[in-house]
């Protein structure tokens, strides 16, 4: 029965799976016994308990009467915010440095090289703390805030941007505007009389902008009262430092990926483009980069995943991300160590799997079709 190699492999795989499940079961059992021995009880009921502590930076509303479950949501959003900002900044900076690395100009080329080597060869945690202290040391106290045209204030407590206060019915308008923005790329593709709609779809974002404009009741400018600036939205220096630390570190690796991908584009492409009379800049922008960018998607994915995971280093600079807040404060206040760590790991697994699934889809979408 198991003489056929394919069958044998099949049986082998099942046996292996059973062994893995058995080991996992044993470990769970052992965990339960150990917890019981220390008078600890496993369970996730604590998520509905009130937290009773304050969170310094939150994107959605927060009060001390909210639950540990909401702490998870608040801190996850903080993590996603800095990760998203980091991914965008790292990509742009990495692209720039990677291209600089191939410049014919000696100075430009070597500045890029020095940047990459310096950033790649020092620990990321040290860099983040460096940026934090550097940011803190250079900015003035709230009373000596730097006034930036447009009603912005910059001081050691962060960057304060004016708050836009929406009317009652504003939130509905905001949702509609978001919907219109999200729909734009799809409308773009809609065929009309044998052709795609294309740029005509850009009328939708304009409508969205107009709707938002109508929804605004007033704009609240930040001002100094007492200890702190009140009014406006605060971008804390912790966020800026973590953002800088994450994106600069990832950018150094991305720069090398960009360089290698550009060099991997067949030399013949450049020569052919040159012989057609394109200028150097045109060759890079129109011929080489579009091919190189497609090649680097799989490698970029792993850099992005690293960046998302490294956002947990924000705990060192008091940025309230999921690791510090949920696997830190909540772990201690609710006395649920195993549970909080399991939740944080599950959340990262979910976020990263979702992200890499998207990147794989995107890669399949844009990958060069080899002939």
């Amino acid at each position, binding site marked *: 029965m198991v003489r056929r190699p394919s069958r044998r492999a099949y049986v082998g795989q099942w046996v292996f799976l059973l062994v893995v499940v058995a080991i996992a079961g044993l470990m769970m059992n052992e965990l339960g016994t150990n917890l019981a021995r*220390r*008078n*600890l009880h496993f369970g996730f009921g604590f998520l509905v308990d009130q937290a*009773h*502590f*304050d969170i*310094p930076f939150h994107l959605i509303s927060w009060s*001390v009467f909210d639950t540990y479950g909401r702490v998870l949501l608040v801190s996850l959003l903080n993590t996603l915010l800095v990760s998203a900002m980091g991914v965008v900044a790292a990509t742009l900076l990495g692209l720039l440095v990677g291209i600089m690395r191939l410049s014919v100009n000696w100075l430009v080329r070597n500045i890029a090289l020095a940047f990459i080597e310096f950033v790649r060869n020092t620990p990321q945690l040290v860099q983040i*703390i460096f940026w*934090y*202290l550097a940011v*803190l*040391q250079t900015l003035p*106290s709230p009373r000596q805030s730097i006034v930036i045209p447009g009603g912005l204030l910059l001081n*050691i*407590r962060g960057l304060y941007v004016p708050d836009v206060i929406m009317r009652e019915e504003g939130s509905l308008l905001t949702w509609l505007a978001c919907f219109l923005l999200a729909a734009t790329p799809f409308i773009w593709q809609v065929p009309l009389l044998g052709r795609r709609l294309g740029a005509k779809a850009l009328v939708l974002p304009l409508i969205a902008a107009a709707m938002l404009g109508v929804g605004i009741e007033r704009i609240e400018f930040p001002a100094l*009262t*007492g*200890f*702190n600036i*009140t009014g406006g939205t605060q971008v804390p*220096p*912790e966020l800026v430092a973590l953002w800088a630390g994450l994106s600069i570190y990832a950018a150094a690796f991305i720069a090398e990926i960009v360089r290698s991908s550009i060099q991997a584009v067949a030399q013949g492409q450049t020569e052919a483009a040159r012989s057609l009379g394109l200028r150097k800049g045109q060759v890079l922008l129109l011929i080489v980069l579009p091919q190189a960018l497609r090649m680097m998607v799989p490698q970029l994915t792993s850099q992005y995943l690293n960046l998302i995971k490294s956002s947990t280093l924000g*705990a*060192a*600079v*008091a940025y*309230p991300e999921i690791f*510090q*807040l949920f696997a*830190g*404060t909540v*772990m*201690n*206040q609710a*006395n649920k*160590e195993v549970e909080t760590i399991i939740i944080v790991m599950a959340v990262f697994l979910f976020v990263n799997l979702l992200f890499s699934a998207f990147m794989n889809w995107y890669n399949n979408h844009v990958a060069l079709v080899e002939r």
Partner: protein
Amino acid sequence: MLRHMTKLATCCAVVAGIIGFAGASWAQSEVKSATLDAVKKRGQLICGVDTGIPGFAFQDAAGKWQGLDVAYCQAIATAVLGDPTKVKYVGTTSKVRFSVLQSGEIDVLIRDSTHTLTRNTELGLAYGGLNFFTGEAFMVKKSLNVAHAKELNGATICVLTGTTLELNIADYGRANNIKINTLLFEKPEEAFAAAEAGRCDGYTDDGGSVAAARSAMKNPKDWIILPELISREFLGAYTRQGDERWTVLVNWVHYAMLEAEVLGITKANIDKVKGETKDPETRSFLGLEENFGKQLGVDNAWAYNLVKAVGNYGENYDTYFGPLELPRGWNNLYTKGGLQYPLPWR
């Protein structure tokens, strides 16, 4: 004949073995404590302390551990092993300290940790004596002209995460209808740096640690400690539940430090006192009478040894908190209006 001899020898060996076994278990049965046995066998105490806070536990320029909590580790090691140097210090952050203790990586946790109801119940930790009475205090920049904690509405305060402090601040704000913003740090170093740079208006911690924080500032005179204590933070040693005799020993090491001060015995005069004293309480404390040491499962001269090695409570307080200009207050002996008292040496 030879066969008989062999039988006899076997019989003797068995009997001897039984007697030996019974004897061994007899000797051990006096004090049953897995932790105490493990420490004796290892020849070293593994003591969980703070990662670095002046006053309680810090490493000096030579890398040697110093501080009140460290003195307690040394006192326990002296009581059990007769040598204050037989300690391995494990620096623990506020976040992981209790897990490290629960998992058995350390024998005792003496890390300026507050004793609370949930820690005694849900975390399964036992009470090992309170070596520092304090409350949560605030340190703010003098230039802010704040005199009382109630005036901190709208201020941003740097705090360490994983502590009772976060809850205290939120509760205090609710009770007084003010809003105090917090910034949560994992380690004191970054929190100090942020306070120094002006990212926060102040720093909060237990009274002793705040005094330590002030001493760590570039210019301590620029900072004032507000008079209010917004909570009770009674700090002390923790052990694991389920090993009562070890917990009892840790408690009595604490009482020995205090008893020595009550009796006026110091590191310097202990040999003189031992030679001259006729006071029964002093004599039993030093192990000249009674067998208190044996009852605890350690050498009968344990209290003598530990005072000789590390000194009494007051000496250690003056050494480590004197430089921080922190008056003894609650931590004075009960005879001097404080809260520190040893249980009777009976």
